[in-house]
């Protein structure tokens, strides 16, 4: 049996979903953009133009839930299947879109540039326990209206792995779609073999702003899988209690899902989220707050009940540095996400309320993920029940180090972490140079960079892509950074 955590009774899940559907039927969502509103009315939704509110009758919701896929297989740059998101499979991916980075060499918190991003891709590509990549932060050395597509281009240039990404403007998706289509036979092929998940955020409570709603519609038209990520702040823009928050969260996700299904039935949609608590004194938004974790685990169960793959912003930290708080929050999130069976967990590498990305943390979190993954390995009988023979052997030999049973099973059973999680005793630690967290991280990172070996993109393709950027960038004066 695989360990699975449940915090909601099935009857409560049903009541929450039912309440969410009622709210969609009566209150619906506000679409804060005229064109998008019109596009949705054309797509068959009922809405009143003067208040731009769209409502969702139950039959539409039933249809949407029926056509939304329960499984998504992400493909790599070359078009090979890479990771399947469904059931209780759990994947971890670096957190996305930080504003700043914690410079591993100087310890300074600063704005990132394209060379930083290339470094990140090479290092993340080498992490053993992360399933795919994300566009982790935003390089500031390119015109910001193309920064969303630019970071996607850099991932595609240096890694073959699928990518969690998203657009920053209302017109961002088509350019990014075009960019990904260069790696497929045609647009249909991109739909058949998707290589990315795009984040689309409703504006709590029950609103869709111009950019996110345009992004959802464009993603659905392009067949790009998306994660619907509401950001409830408990007690601020959400009920402070878990059940009420789950109703609101579910309603928002299902509104996005229904819109996507209406535009293109069968578009993969993840039941996502980045809910946070609201700190009633400091006015900050901790995503790792213990009550927020309850909300994450609750909606994972609802997603499972509805047979929709899930996504969450977990296994990250709100701390500013790689300190004890970071370890606590990341570890707690990773274990809970695994137990809750969340299919795509965005978080590793992230600090400071998703504002800051750290490569040292990424190296550490890779091992945190390994811990979480190990913990949910099913507990099964492995030639150890009945146990009498093993006990006899142990009593006779005084240890089982050389037992056939141990030799057969220990490599799978006993996970050896390190070097980030340090298992040396004091003397060993001194003998090995008394290495600090930072020094160990530097070694992991350097090793990743040394081992990095991904087939570069064809020069002709680079040229074609750069032409796309040059023709769609607002600032024609700025030379786009070159990389080898």
């Amino acid at each position, binding site marked *: 049996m695989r360990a699975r955590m449940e915090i909601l009774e099935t009857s409560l899940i049903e009541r929450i979903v039912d309440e969410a559907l009622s709210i969609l039927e009566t209150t619906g969502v506000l679409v*804060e953009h005229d064109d998008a509103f019109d596009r949705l009315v054309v797509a068959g939704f009922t809405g009143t133009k003067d208040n731009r509110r769209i409502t969702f009758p139950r039959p539409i919701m039933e249809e949407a839930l029926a056509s939304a896929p329960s499984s998504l297989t992400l493909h790599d740059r070359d078009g090979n299947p890479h990771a399947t998101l469904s059931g209780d499979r759990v994947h971890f991916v670096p957190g996305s879109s930080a*504003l700043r980075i914690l410079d591993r060499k100087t310890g300074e918190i600063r704005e990132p540039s394209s060379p930083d991003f290339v470094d990140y891709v090479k290092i993340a590509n080498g992490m053993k326990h992360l399933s795919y990549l994300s566009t982790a932060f*935003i390089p*500031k050395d390119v015109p*910001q*209206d193309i*920064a*969303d597509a630019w970071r996607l281009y850099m991932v595609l240039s240096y890694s073959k792995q699928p990518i969690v990404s998203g657009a*920053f*403007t209302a017109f961002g998706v088509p350019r990014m779609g075009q960019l990904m289509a260069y790696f497929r036979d045609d647009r249909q092929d991109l739909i058949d073999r998707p290589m990315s998940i795009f984040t689309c955020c409703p*504006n709590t409570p029950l609103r869709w*702003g*111009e*950019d996110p709603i345009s992004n959802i519609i464009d993603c659905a038209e392009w067949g790009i899988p998306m994660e619907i990520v509401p950001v409830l*702040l408990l*007690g*601020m*823009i959400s009920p402070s209690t878990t059940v009420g928050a789950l109703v609101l969260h579910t309603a928002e996700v299902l509104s996005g899902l229904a819109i996507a299904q209406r535009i293109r039935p069968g578009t993969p949609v993840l039941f996502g989220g980045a809910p946070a608590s609201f700190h*009633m*004194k*400091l*006015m900050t938004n901790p995503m790792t707050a213990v009550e927020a974790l309850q909300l994450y685990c609750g909606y994972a169960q609802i997603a499972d009940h509805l047979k929709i793959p899930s996504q969450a912003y977990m296994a990250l930290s709100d701390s500013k540095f790689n300190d004890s708080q970071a370890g606590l929050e990341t570890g707690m999130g990773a274990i809970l996400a695994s137990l809750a069976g969340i299919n795509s967990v965005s978080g590793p590498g992230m600090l400071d*309320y998703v*504002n800051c990305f750290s490569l040292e943390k990424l190296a550490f979190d890779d091992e945190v993920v390994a811990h979480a993954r190990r913990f949910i390995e099913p507990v099964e009988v492995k030639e150890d029940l009945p146990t009498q023979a093993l006990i006899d052997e142990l009593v006779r030999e005084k240890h089982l180090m050389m037992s056939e049973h141990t030799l057969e099973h220990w490599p799978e059973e006993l996970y050896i972490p390190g070097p980030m999680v340090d298992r040396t005793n004091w003397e060993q630690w001194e003998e090995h140079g008394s290495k600090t967290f930072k020094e160990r991280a530097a070694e992991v990172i350097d090793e990743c960079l040394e081992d990095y070996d991904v087939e570069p993109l064809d020069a002709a393709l680079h040229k074609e892509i750069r032409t796309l950027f040059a023709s769609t960038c607002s600032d024609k004066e700025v030379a786009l950074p070159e990389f080898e």
Partner: protein
Amino acid sequence: MADYALMNQLLFEGKHKIVQQMTEEALAEGLDVAAVLEDGLIAGMRVVGEDFKRNRIFVPEVLLAARAMKAGMAILRPLLTERGDADTSETIVMGTVKGDLHDIGKNLVGMMAEGAGFTIVDLGTDTSAEEFIAAVREHDAAILGMSALLTTTMIYMPKVVEAVKASGLDVKIAVGGAPVTPEFANEIGADGYGADAASAVNVFKELVAAREASRTSP
């Protein structure tokens, strides 16, 4: 006689309707506007601020008190303006810049500033330079407060600053939001930066004082 102690207590408890009623009654009794403001409302808010600092109360209680303050101010403001002593009831035009829909932080700043007695004209999200300037002009605002949460939209802030400078309006500009730093604020020629709602209110007060000073000095 107006019971200022009771008024302070009710303001502290966020009883906005009664506070408003008591404000009206105090004026009807012929009490001085400035005295009602200071002893009836501001004195109550001072306790709120003090208790917030000491973790005796939290943001929800502060907002309730701020709403009561605002209810009282609605009665006092026209009279204060008539007399020409505006000071803390100055107007702030607030908005999230073009292309950006993040408004949680901006709204909190607005609510806290209202609690401190400022009048807020909220332009909402996705606000253009033209809209900012028109609102500042229409409401004779002392401060223009801009918020941005995206790296793609914070670059719009200098455009607003430039447009405001070109318009010749006598208004101080304050900026804030997660990607905004004091250095950035400085670089683009903004007059103030606030890291959170509490410091934003202090910045607003300083800016009003600076504006007053520059107006009175020859």
